[in-house]
C-alpha cells in the first residue's frame, strides 16, 4: 500500500460527544462515513451524484467539500464501473465505499459483485482481500417505481464470500457502517430507505454488537419474530401490542443476513417454540425460507407450531398506488403471530 501523497483535508468530523445524539438514519450514516474518512486515509467513496450533489438521499452530503474529490468520487453512470473500480481500488490497498443510488440499479453491477468481488479471496487462497462496502438504499414505501423499491438481499446472501448486513435504526446504522468499512471482507450494506428519516439516539462512543450477530431487541417467551431493516420497527410495534395483552413476543433484529447468526435465533426458538420470520422481500427462496430451514434442522423438537413467513408477494414490486397493499406491516405480522399461537 502506498502512502497517499495527497494530504488529507482537516477532518471536519464532530468530536465524539459523550452520550447519545438524536439523528435520523440518513444523518447517522453520513456521520459514519465522515468518521471513517477522517479516521483512515484509505477510505474512499465512489458513486453517482454523491460528491457535488451529496447523494439523492443526502447520505454523502458535504463529504466531498470536506475531503476532496479524490476521496469522494463522482462516477459516471454505470454500476459495473463503480463496483469494478472499487475492486481495483481495494486491490491497491484502499477501502472503497460504493453508493448504488437505488436498489434496482445494483443489477447492472451483479456480474462484478458475484463473479469478482465475492470470489477473489477464495480463488486467491486468501492472498487478495477486497474490503469493499456497497451501500444500497433498499425496499419500498416511498411512492417510487419498481426498480427504486426492490429488496435484493437474497441474491447476495446466496453468494458465498459476501457479507450482507442491514441496520434498523440510527445507532445501528452508524456502528454497522463503521464495522463494515473496517472489515476486510466485501460487505453489501442494505439501507432501508423508507427509514432514512426515522430518528433515534446515536452514541458513537458505545459500540453496537458485532456486525455478524443478531440482536434481541424486545424480549418475550411466547413467540419469536425474526425481522430486519424496515420491518423491525413494525415487529416492535406488534410486540408492544401483544405485551398489553400479556403475550410475550421476542423480536430479533437479524442485522447480519449473511452469515446468519443461528445461535441467537435457536436460543430464542428453543424457549418460545414458535417463530415468525418477517421481511419485505418476496417469499420464494427468501431469507425467511433460509431461517425456517435452519430452525427446523436444529430445533425441530422445540417447535410448537410451523415456522411462518410474513413477506412481500411473489410478484414484481407493484406500482405506487398498490404498494400499501403489497408491503407487509404490523397487521400481517400480527396475523401470523396469532396463527402461530393458535397451534
Amino acid at each position, binding site marked *: 500500500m*502506498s*502512502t*497517499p*501523497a*495527497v494530504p488529507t483535508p482537516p477532518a471536519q468530523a464532530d468530536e465524539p460527544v459523550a452520550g447519545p445524539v438524536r439523528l435520523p438514519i440518513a444523518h447517522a450514516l453520513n456521520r459514519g462515513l465522515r468518521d471513517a474518512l477522517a479516521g483512515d486515509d484509505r477510505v*474512499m467513496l465512489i458513486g453517482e451524484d454523491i460528491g457535488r450533489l451529496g447523494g439523492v438521499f443526502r447520505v454523502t452530503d458535504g463529504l466531498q467539500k470536506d475531503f476532496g474529490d*479524490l*476521496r469522494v*468520487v463522482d*462516477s*459516471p453512470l*454505470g454500476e*459495473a*464501473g463503480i*463496483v*469494478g*473500480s*472499487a*475492486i*481495483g*481500488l*481495494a*486491490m*491497491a*490497498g*484502499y477501502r*472503497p465505499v460504493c453508493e448504488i443510488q437505488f436498489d434496482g440499479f445494483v443489477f*447492472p453491477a451483479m*456480474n*462484478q459483485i458475484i*463473479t*469478482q468481488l465475492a*470470489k*477473489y*479471496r*477464495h*480463488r*486467491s*487462497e*486468501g*492472498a*487478495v*482481500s477486497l474490503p469493499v462496502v456497497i451501500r444500497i438504499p433498499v425496499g419500498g414505501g416511498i411512492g417510487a417505481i419498481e426498480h427504486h423499491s426492490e429488496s435484493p438481499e437474497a441474491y447476495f446472501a446466496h453468494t*458465498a*464470500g459476501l*457479507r450482507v448486513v442491514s441496520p434498523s435504526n440510527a445507532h445501528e446504522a452508524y456502528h454497522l457502517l463503521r464495522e463494515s468499512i473496517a*472489515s*476486510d*471482507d466485501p460487505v453489501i450494506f442494505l439501507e432501508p430507505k423508507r427509514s432514512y428519516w426515522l430518528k433515534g439516539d446515536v452514541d458513537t462512543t458505545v459500540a453496537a454488537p458485532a456486525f455478524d450477530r443478531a440482536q434481541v431487541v424486545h424480549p418475550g417467551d411466547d413467540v419469536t419474530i425474526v425481522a430486519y431493516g424496515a420491518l423491525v420497527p413494525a415487529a416492535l410495534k406488534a410486540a408492544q401490542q401483544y405485551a398489553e395483552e400479556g403475550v410475550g413476543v421476542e423480536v430479533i433484529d437479524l442485522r447480519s443476513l449473511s*452469515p446468519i447468526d443461528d445461535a441467537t435465533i435457536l436460543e430464542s426458538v428453543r424457549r418460545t417454540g414458535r417463530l415468525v420470520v418477517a421481511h419485505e422481500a418476496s417469499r420464494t427462496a427468501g431469507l425467511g425460507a433460509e431461517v425456517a430451514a435452519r430452525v427446523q434442522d436444529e430445533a425441530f423438537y422445540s417447535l410448537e407450531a410451523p415456522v411462518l413467513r410474513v413477506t412481500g408477494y411473489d410478484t414484481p414490486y407493484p406500482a405506487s398506488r398498490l404498494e400499501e397493499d403489497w408491503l407487509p406491516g404490523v397487521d400481517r405480522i400480527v396475523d401470523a403471530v396469532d396463527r402461530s399461537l393458535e397451534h
Partner: protein
Amino acid sequence: MKLDDLLSMWRIRALEEKIRDLRLEGPIVGSVHLANGQESVAVGACSQLRPQDALYATYRGHGWAVARGVPPREIFAELMGRVTGVNGGRGGSAHFSAPQHGFHGENSIVGAGAPIAVGAALAGKYDGSRRAAMTVFGDGAINQGAVAEAMNFAAALGLGVVFVCENNRYSELTPIDDMVAEPDLSRRASALGIPAVRIDGNDLAQVRTATRLAVEAAAAGRGPSFIEAHTQRIVGHYIGDSEQYRPAGELERDLVVEPIARLTRELLADGVPTESVERCERRAREEMETAAAAALRDPLADPATAKEHLYA
C-alpha cells in the same frame, strides 16, 4: 536482444504446449485456453510495464503471467491443483493471480477486468504513484457493456488505463467481423476520446512502441490509451475445440505470420546462426519440462481445505 525476445516467446509457447500435453494426459483437469500464436503481444506489452503497474488478464492469460514474471513451476502446479500452485490450486487455469508480480488476475468473464483496471488507475491517481493499469482482452470483449463503461470511466476521469485489445479475429468461436458493423475496433475507444492505435501485434517493435507511449501517457497523468493489436491464435479456443469455424487455408497462412515464425525468419536473415536460434526453443522446452516435472511431484491440495478463505 532479438534472441532474448525469441526466448521469451518460446517460453510461453513451450509452457502452453506442455500444458496441453498435461491436460490430455490427465494431470491437468478442466477447461484450458491456450494462447499459442499470440505471444508477441504479451512479451512486448509486459516489457514496458514497471513494477508498480498493474496487469489484468483474461482466461487466456498464462503467457501474460509468464511475461510478468510469474514462475512457470507455480503456474503448472496451479493448473494441476497442487498446494505449490500460485494460488494453492484454487484459481486454476482461468482464475489465478499473483499480485506480487503485478499480475492481478485472469478472468473468465469476458471484459470484466476492464472496470477493475479503472480502479487500479484511480488508486494511482489518488496516491500519486501514477501507476498504469493495463487490462488486456480479446476482440469479443469489445462488445461487452462493461468494457465500454470502463473506457468512458477512464476517459472522463483521466485515469491511466492501458486498454489492450488482442484481436485474434474470433469472438470465442465466431468471426468478430460477423458481430460488429465497424471492423475497426479501435474506433470504439476514439469515439470516447481515448487515443487509439491499431498495430500488427506480430511485430514486437510495434507492440513495444505502442505500449511505451501508453504507459508514458498514464505515468504523465494524460489518461487512458487503447491499443488494438492484430494477432492470431493458432490453436483452438480451448483444448478440445474442433475448430470447424476456420476457413480452409487460414491456419496455414497464420503459421507463416505468427510471431515466433516471423522473428525466427528475421533473425536468420540478419545472419544469426541457426544454432543460436534453435537453442531458444530447446532451452525454453527444457525449462518447462523441468518446471512441470517438479510441479507434478508436489502434493495435491487437500479437499478438506476447500471451505477456507471465504472470509477474513
